[in-house]
């Protein structure tokens, strides 16, 4: 009698957890449950300790690899710096001539986004999902719905937080969708994760101009990610055919296999802010982000 009762009880707990978590994912702040938060927090230092030798070995190998051809790369970069310096000078001159330099300098403060560096400590346990655990949580001002980026581009979105850790769902995850734009032709579309190392870019066939090698950036129109962040590079485009939508395959701008350090943007996009504010209860997010921005 004890076993059937336990089984029924556990099945009910699992089902209720799924429904509650689904509701939390759709709107409102999504935190790890109070009893589970400490487990996740406790996992972070252990994972950090385990990650240390792994990261050390990877970095050593990567540095060795980087040394090969460093002289050639240095020469190319020097040349590139000269070109960019020249271009920068010309642009400044043009701005000064138009009398808008001071105005733009004032506007810059408004556009500066507070970012918090975070370290990846663990990956997803299931091959079906693509998420990572980072070592920053609510105590550092991180909240669900905040974008995660690296110096290469978009990484993902914070989807659950505990006091000292957060889970970020990656761009590669099947549940991810981002509004993107082709940088060259300004063709808009939706970037979707496929659960593999590649993502797809879906755009309207009529008028859409996408070619192999095009860079796709965030459009900012989804109200989740800031505009202009690199998403990926087009490697293949489907045949036009008679369909309304066409699909391009992208290699993500971020090398997820070598990702160690990320930045959490401590400001939610307008859509996320609206979504989370509607449900209420997370009004301290802005205060926390404002506080963290000072760090």
């Amino acid at each position, binding site marked *: 009698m004890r*076993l059937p009762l336990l089984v029924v009880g556990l099945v009910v707990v699992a089902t209720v957890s799924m429904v509650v*978590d689904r509701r939390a994912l759709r709107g409102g702040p999504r935190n790890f449950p109070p009893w589970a938060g400490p487990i996740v927090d406790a996992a972070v230092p252990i994972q950090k300790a385990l990650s240390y030798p792994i990261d050390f070995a990877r970095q050593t190998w990567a540095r060795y690899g980087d040394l090969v051809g460093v002289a050639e790369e240095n020469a190319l970069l020097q040349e590139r710096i000269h070109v960019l310096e020249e271009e920068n000078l010309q642009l400044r001159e043009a701005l000064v001539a138009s009398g808008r330099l001071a105005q733009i300098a004032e506007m810059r403060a408004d556009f500066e986004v507070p970012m918090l560096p975070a370290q990846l400590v663990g990956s*997803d346990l*299931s091959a079906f999902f693509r998420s990572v655990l980072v070592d920053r949580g609510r105590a550092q001002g991180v909240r669900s719905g905040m974008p995660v980026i690296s110096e290469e581009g978009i990484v993902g979105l914070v989807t659950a937080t505990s006091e000292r850790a957060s889970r970020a769902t990656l761009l590669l995850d099947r*549940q991810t969708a981002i509004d993107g734009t082709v940088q060259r032709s300004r063709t808009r579309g939706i970037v979707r994760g496929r659960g593999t190392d590649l993502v797809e870019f879906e755009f309207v066939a009529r008028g859409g101009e996408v070619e192999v090698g095009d860079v796709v950036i965030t459009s900012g129109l989804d109200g989740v990610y800031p505009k202009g962040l690199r998403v990926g590079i087009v490697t293949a485009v489907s045949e036009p055919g008679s369909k309304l939508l066409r699909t391009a395959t992208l290699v993500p701008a971020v090398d997820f296999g070598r990702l160690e350090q990320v930045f959490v943007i401590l400001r939610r996009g307008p859509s996320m802010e609206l979504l989370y504010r509607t449900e209420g209860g997370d009004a301290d997010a802005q205060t926390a982000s404002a506080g963290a921005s000072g760090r």
Partner: protein
Amino acid sequence: MKRELVLAGLSLLVLIAQAAVGRVVAPQWCPDLGLLLVVGFGLSVRSATSGIALAAFVGYLSDLLSGSLLGQHMLLRMVAFAAARVGCRRLNLRGPVPLAIFAAGLSTAHGLALWALVSFFASGSPPPWPPVGDFAAQAAVNGLLAPLVAAGVARVYQALGDEEGTKLMRLEPRKFPA
């Protein structure tokens, strides 16, 4: 109870270690140690009550450390435990090869069930079907490691003392009338 607590603690450490190692191994080649632990419980843990509670605990931990909804892995791990329990009674899973084949099959079924659950709870269109190659790769890795993990679980379980087994074996002193 002591054994169950130790197994739960060890499972937590194993899952944390898997998440750390998973950063360098491609997901499809990373073994699902949570599933393999549950198979090990199904084969070694004598009490079904303890076994299902342990399976649910491992599932819940997997949910915490992965991008799934809380409860998805918990439910599936309980089903996996039941399958392992029934499997070890109906089939001969004593050798490494049958166990590897069983674990590989269970891994594939688990992946399909997870996809079904995710699709059921997904808003809008269901997520794309996972690549068959990924399924096959993970099933192969899980199959290869299943005998090792099962042997590890059995060894830990025995090392901590098989209390129930001892109870069953204990002979009550016979009372003779004076």
